[in-house]
């Protein structure tokens, strides 16, 4: 079975641009979460979606937004990119909400020039 897939794997943008990152959860998983991992640090929670509704939001500015589609895939959008947005963006999926094991993708490496 396919795991969590994220696209693209690498991305280079310049300051002020906009970016969309995509995530396909494991088949049958209805919850998707997004995390930002800056180099040398642990991942930080950005969003969680379950059944297409936002269930949690971390301490990130409004430049960050996300949505979940009827097929449970998800997009993370970041506007007005800053140098500090350079990071590995990780997507995790789980079967349902609550304390379910979360399965992570390999991430999208975003570099801002």
């Amino acid at each position, binding site marked *: 079975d396919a795991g*969590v897939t994220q696209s693209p794997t690498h991305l280079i943008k310049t300051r002020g641009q906009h970016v969309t990152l995509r995530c396909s959860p494991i088949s049958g998983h209805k*919850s998707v*979460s997004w*995390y930002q991992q800056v180099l040398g*640090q*642990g*991942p*930080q*929670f950005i969003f*969680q979606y*379950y059944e297409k509704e936002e*269930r*949690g939001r*971390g301490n990130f500015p409004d430049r960050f937004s996300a949505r979940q589609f009827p097929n449970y895939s998800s997009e993370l959008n970041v506007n007005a990119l800053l140098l500090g947005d350079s990071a590995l963006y*990780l997507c*995790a999926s*789980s079967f349902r*909400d*609550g*304390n*379910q*094991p*979360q*399965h*992570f*993708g*390999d*991430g999208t490496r975003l570099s801002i020039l």
Partner: protein
Amino acid sequence: AQSVTQLDSHVSVSEGTPVLLRCNYSSSYSPSLFWYVQHPNKGLQLLLKYTSAATLVKGINGFEAEFKKSETSFHLTKPSAHMSDAAEYFCVVSERGFQKLVFGTGTRLLVSP
């Protein structure tokens, strides 16, 4: 608020010797605790989780962790290190019933021949 403190940023062991990675947690509620491993340029893999059942938790690849409420600790151990164990290890806490994971800063495990 929940948090975890990983007491060592780097741990070096020789192949075949025991591994100890230390983690202390802080939580206002009964926490769920996890250990994740991250190999270079990869996503996160769940090693084990504690959710209020047995205090000694066995995970994959020979790892185990013991939940000690009196010490607010959740240390990760393995009797005998293997070269393939070299990676970054994250101690993680979440509030029971919620998906948001709070990660520690990570411990890099180095294994020498």
